[in-house]
C-alpha cells in the first residue's frame, strides 16, 4: 500500500535547491496558479496613472518612518521640564509629548530625518490621492463598473486627512495646539451635543491631559488599519475591473492594451517606489517641515501670526475665515429657545465640506441618472470630450481653491502689501462667482478644443510651410494625419440630450422631466466627431489647392 502511494509521487522533481524550495512552497499554496493568472496580466500605461501609485508608495513610507518614530515618541501630556540639547528651550515647562518630539529631533540620530520624511510623505500622501481623484474624475474613470471603487477612494481621501490631522497634533507644540483649539471651537458650535463631544474628546475642559494620548491611538492604530483595509478593497477592485485605458487606436471597451505585469510593468512600478522614496528623502534632507522647536510648547495664551494648518485642512480653515460673523446688524450667532446657535462657525465648518464630499461621493450616480448610461466603460474620456463634466469638475476645483487660498488670506495680504480686509472681500465674492466663471470658461475651452480636434482630423495638421499659389494667394500646407493619429481625435462618443421618456404607465413623471432637463444641460452643447464622409468632402475641397501648391513649389526650385 505505502509502496504504491510512494510510486504515485509527483512526477516533477526540481533540479536545483532553490527549485526544490520553490516547489515545496508552491505545492502547498498553489503559487503556480496565481502566477499563471497574474504573471502576464496586462496593465495600460500612462503618466497620469502614477498618482495612485505615488499615494500607495507614500503610505508605505509613512508606515516605515512612523514605526521608527513610535519607538521614541511618548504621548503623555504630563508636565515636565525640558532637559534635552536644544538650548533655547532648556528648562522650559512643557508636556512629555512635546519634549519627546524635541528629543527625536535633536538627540536621536536620524530622528529629525525620520520626522521630516514622515511629515513630507503625509503631505504627499493626501496630495497624490487628491490629484489621483481629479484624474479619475476628469477622465470619467468612475463610470460603471467602477462607481464603488470611486467611493472607496473617496473614503481613503477622508481617512488620509484624518490620519494627517491626528498626526499633526501629536507633538503638542504651539501651532498644532492652536489647531486643536480651533477644532474644539468648531465642535462646541454643534447644537445640543457639541459641549458634550468636546468634553468627551478632551477628557474634560480644553486642553486637558488626555487628548494627545487618544489622538495617538487613532493615529497609529485605528486610522492606519482602516486605510490599509480600504487600500486592500481598492486594489482588489482594480484587479477585478482591470485598469482603464486612454482612448486610441486598438483600444476599446472589450480589451485592455498595455504592458504585461512581468517584467516591464512590474519593473516600472517597482522602480517607481524607490523613486518616490528618493524624492521624499531629498525633500526631507533640504526642506524643513514643521520646525516644532521654533513654535514652543502649547500654551493657550500666545499665538504666532501667519498660522497655517497643513495644506489639506486649509480649505476648512479658509471657509471659517471667509464667513462674516456679522452682516450689518445681523449676527450669525443667536439665541434660540434659550440656547446658543452659532451659525458663523457651524455653517462654514460643515456646509462647504459637506457639499464637496456629498457631491463627490454621489457624482457617479448623478451622472448615471442624467445620462441613463448603463454600459461598462473601460476606455477613458479625454476631458475635452465630456465638456459638461469637465466644467463641473473645474467649478468644484476652483471652489475648493478659493477656500484654500482664504486659509492664507493674511499671508496674501502681507506678501502683496494689500489690505487684509480687501483680500477677504474679494475671496468672499470669488467663493460665489469663481465656480460659475470656472464652469463657463472650462466648458467653452473644452468645446473649442473639440472643434480644434475636428479641424485637425479633417484638414490635417499645420506644417508651418507657407506656399504661394500661382495667382498670388498664400496658404499654409496641412499634412493629413495617419489613420492612427486621426482615430484618436475622432474615436469618441458625443451623446445628444435624452428627452423625457414616458414610464410603463405612459406617464412622463416629474422626476423624468427633471432628468431630461439636466440631460439637455449636460449634452446640448456638443461637437460631433468628424466622420469619414466629412473627411471625404474636406479632401475634395482642399486637395487640388494643396496639390497645386506642391506643384508650384516644385516648379520654383
Amino acid at each position, binding site marked *: 500500500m505505502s509502496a504504491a502511494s510512494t510510486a504515485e509521487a509527483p512526477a516533477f522533481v526540481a533540479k536545483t535547491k532553490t527549485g526544490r524550495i520553490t516547489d515545496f512552497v508552491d505545492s502547498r499554496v498553489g503559487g503556480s496558479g496565481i502566477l499563471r493568472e497574474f504573471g502576464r496580466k496586462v496593465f495600460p500605461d500612462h503618466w497620469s496613472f502614477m498618482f495612485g501609485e505615488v499615494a500607495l508608495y507614500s503610505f508605505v513610507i509613512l508606515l516605515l518612518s512612523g514605526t521608527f518614530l513610535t519607538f521614541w515618541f511618548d504621548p503623555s501630556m504630563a508636565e515636565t521640564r525640558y532637559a534635552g540639547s536644544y538650548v533655547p528651550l532648556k528648562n522650559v515647562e512643557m508636556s512629555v509629548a512635546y519634549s519627546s518630539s524635541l528629543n527625536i529631533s535633536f538627540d536621536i540620530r536620524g530622528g529629525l530625518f525620520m520626522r521630516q520624511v514622515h511629515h513630507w510623505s503625509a503631505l504627499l500622501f493626501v496630495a497624490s490621492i487628491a490629484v489621483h481623484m481629479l484624474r479619475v474624475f476628469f477622465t470619467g474613470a468612475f463610470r460603471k463598473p467602477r462607481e464603488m471603487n470611486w467611493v472607496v477612494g473617496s473614503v481613503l481621501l477622508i481617512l488620509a486627512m484624518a490620519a494627517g490631522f491626528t498626526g499633526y497634533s501629536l507633538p503638542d507644540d504651539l501651532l498644532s495646539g492652536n489647531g486643536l483649539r480651533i477644532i474644539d471651537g468648531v465642535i462646541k458650535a454643534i447644537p445640543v451635543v457639541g459641549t458634550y463631544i468636546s468634553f468627551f474628546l478632551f477628557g474634560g475642559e480644553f486642553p486637558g491631559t488626555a487628548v494627545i494620548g487618544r489622538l495617538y491611538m487613532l493615529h497609529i492604530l485605528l486610522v492606519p488599519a482602516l486605510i490599509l483595509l480600504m487600500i486592500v478593497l481598492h486594489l482588489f477592485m482594480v484587479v477585478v*475591473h482591470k485598469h482603464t485605458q486612454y482612448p486610441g487606436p486598438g483600444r476599446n471597451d472589450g480589451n485592455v492594451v498595455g504592458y504585461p505585469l512581468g517584467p516591464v510593468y512590474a519593473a516600472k512600478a517597482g522602480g517607481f517606489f524607490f523613486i518616490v522614496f528618493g524624492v521624499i528623502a531629498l525633500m526631507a534632507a533640504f526642506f524643513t517641515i514643521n520646525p516644532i522647536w521654533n513654535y514652543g510648547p502649547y500654551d493657550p495664551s500666545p499665538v504666532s501670526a501667519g498660522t497655517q494648518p497643513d495644506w489639506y485642512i486649509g480649505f476648512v480653515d479658509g471657509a471659517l475665515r471667509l464667513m462674516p460673523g456679522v452682516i450689518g446688524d445681523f449676527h450669525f450667532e443667536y439665541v434660540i429657545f434659550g*440656547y446658543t446657535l452659532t451659525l458663523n462657525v457651524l455653517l462654514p465648518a460643515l456646509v462647504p465640506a459637506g457639499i464637496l464630499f456629498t457631491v463627490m461621493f454621489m457624482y457617479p450616480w448623478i451622472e448615471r441618472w442624467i445620462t441613463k448610461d448603463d454600459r461598462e466603460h473601460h476606455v477613458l474620456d479625454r476631458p475635452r470630450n465630456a465638456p459638461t463634466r469637465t466644467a463641473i469638475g473645474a467649478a468644484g476645483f476652483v471652489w475648493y481653491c478659493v477656500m484654500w487660498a482664504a486659509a492664507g488670506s493674511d499671508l496674501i495680504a502681507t506678501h502683496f502689501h494689500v489690505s487684509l480686509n480687501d483680500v477677504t472681500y474679494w475671496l468672499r465674492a470669488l467663493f460665489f462667482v469663481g465656480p460659475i466663471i470656472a464652469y463657463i470658461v472650462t466648458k467653452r475651452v473644452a468645446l473649442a478644443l473639440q472643434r480644434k480636434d475636428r479641424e485637425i482630423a479633417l484638414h490635417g495638421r499645420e506644417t508651418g510651410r507657407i506656399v504661394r499659389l500661382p495667382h498670388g494667394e498664400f496658404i499654409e500646407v496641412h499634412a493629413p494625419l495617419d*489613420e492612427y493619429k486621426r482615430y484618436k481625435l475622432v474615436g469618441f462618443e458625443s451623446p445628444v440630450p435624452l428627452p423625457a421618456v414616458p414610464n410603463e404607465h405612459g406617464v412622463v413623471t416629474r422626476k423624468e422631466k427633471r432628468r431630461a432637463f439636466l440631460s439637455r444641460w449636460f449634452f446640448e452643447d456638443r461637437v460631433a466627431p468628424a466622420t469619414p464622409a466629412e473627411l471625404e468632402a474636406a479632401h475634395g475641397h482642399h486637395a487640388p489647392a494643396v496639390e497645386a501648391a506642391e506643384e508650384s513649389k516644385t516648379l520654383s526650385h
Partner: protein
Amino acid sequence: MGNHSDGSPNHSGTVATAGQNEVEKFQDPGLPPHRLRLADTDPKAAKRAERQVAVLFGASVVGTLIFLVAYFAIDLGAGSGANIATIRLQNALLGLGTAFAMLGIGTGIVHWAKALMPDHEVSEERHAIRTEEDRLAAVRIVDDIVEETGIKRRPLIRNTLLGAVALAPLPAIAVFGDLGPRPDNKLAHTMWAPLEGKLKRLTRDPDGTPIKASDVTLGSAFHVIPEGLNELHEGKLNEKAKAVVLLMRLDPASLKPSAGREDWSYNGIVAYSKICTHVGCPVALYEQQTHHLLCPCHQSTFDLTQECKVIFGPASRPLPQLPIAVDNEGYLVATSDFKEPVGPSYWERDEHERSVNS
C-alpha cells in the same frame, strides 16, 4: 436621420453618435505598428544602456555608504557639543544618502525596463465581471441556504434574533460613557472669581508678577493671567485657556462705557478676555493706533473703543470685558469674574450667561 441635434429618444440608453449611423464612423485601425528602439537594433546602444543601468545601481551603493558614514561619524550624544548646525548637516547627509540609494535603484530599474525589456504593447480581452450563469447558480445557493435555515418559516426565531442583534451593540457605545466628565457649568466660570472675598490681582503672563496701575502707560498692552495661576498643580492650562486677558490703556475719553460698565475700567485701563469668541484662538495682535484687536487665526477684528464689538471677520460676539479696579496698594485687581462665559460659543452658553448674572 442624419440630423444629430434633435436627438430622438433612445431606449437602450446607448447614446447617439454623430450621424446616428454606425457605417459613418471611422473604423478602429487597430494598434499602431510597433517601432523599434535604438537598443533593439544597435547592440552598441544596448550595451550602453546596460552600463548606464549598472552606473545607477552603483550610485545607489554610494548613497547607502553616505548614509552610514553620516550616521556613525556625526555624534549627537550628550556632551558632544552638537548644535543646530551639526544636526542640520547630519540631516542633509542622511537625506542625501537615502535619496541616492533609492533614486539609484529606482531610476536604474526604470531605465532597464524602458531601454532593454521588451516594449511590445499587448492586447488582452476583458471578461464579464459577472456571468448570468454564475448569477443563477449563486441565487440557487442562497435560496437553498435560506431554505435550510428555515428562517422564513420561523418568524419567532427571526424576530428575536433581530431584536437581540439590534440591542447587543449598545454596551459597546455605553462603555465610552467615561471618556469625559459632564460639562455642567465649568465653562461658565474662570479663575478670576474672588476667592473667599479676596479680589484676584492681574499679573503678567508668564511670570505672574502683579501689575500696578501706574505701570500701564497710555498705549501700552499687557498679557495678563490671574494671580495664583502659576501655583496651580493641576489643570493649569485648562484655567489659563479661559482666564488669559489683554490689558490696555487708552485715552479715557475714547472709551464710551455702556450702562452698567462705567466702573469696569480704571483711568482708561481696560481688560478684555484674550480668547476669541469665534473658535478660541488667542486674540494676540493689538493695533495701538486704531485700538483694534486682531485674532491671527481667522482675522476677527474687535474695536476697543466700542467695547470690543466685532468690526470684521467671522466672530459674532464682542470679547467679554473683565471688570477691574485698583486695590489699596495700587495693584490692578478684578472686581469679579467675567459676567459671561469666555471663548467660543456653545449650545448652553446663553443659559450659563443668565445664571452668571442672576
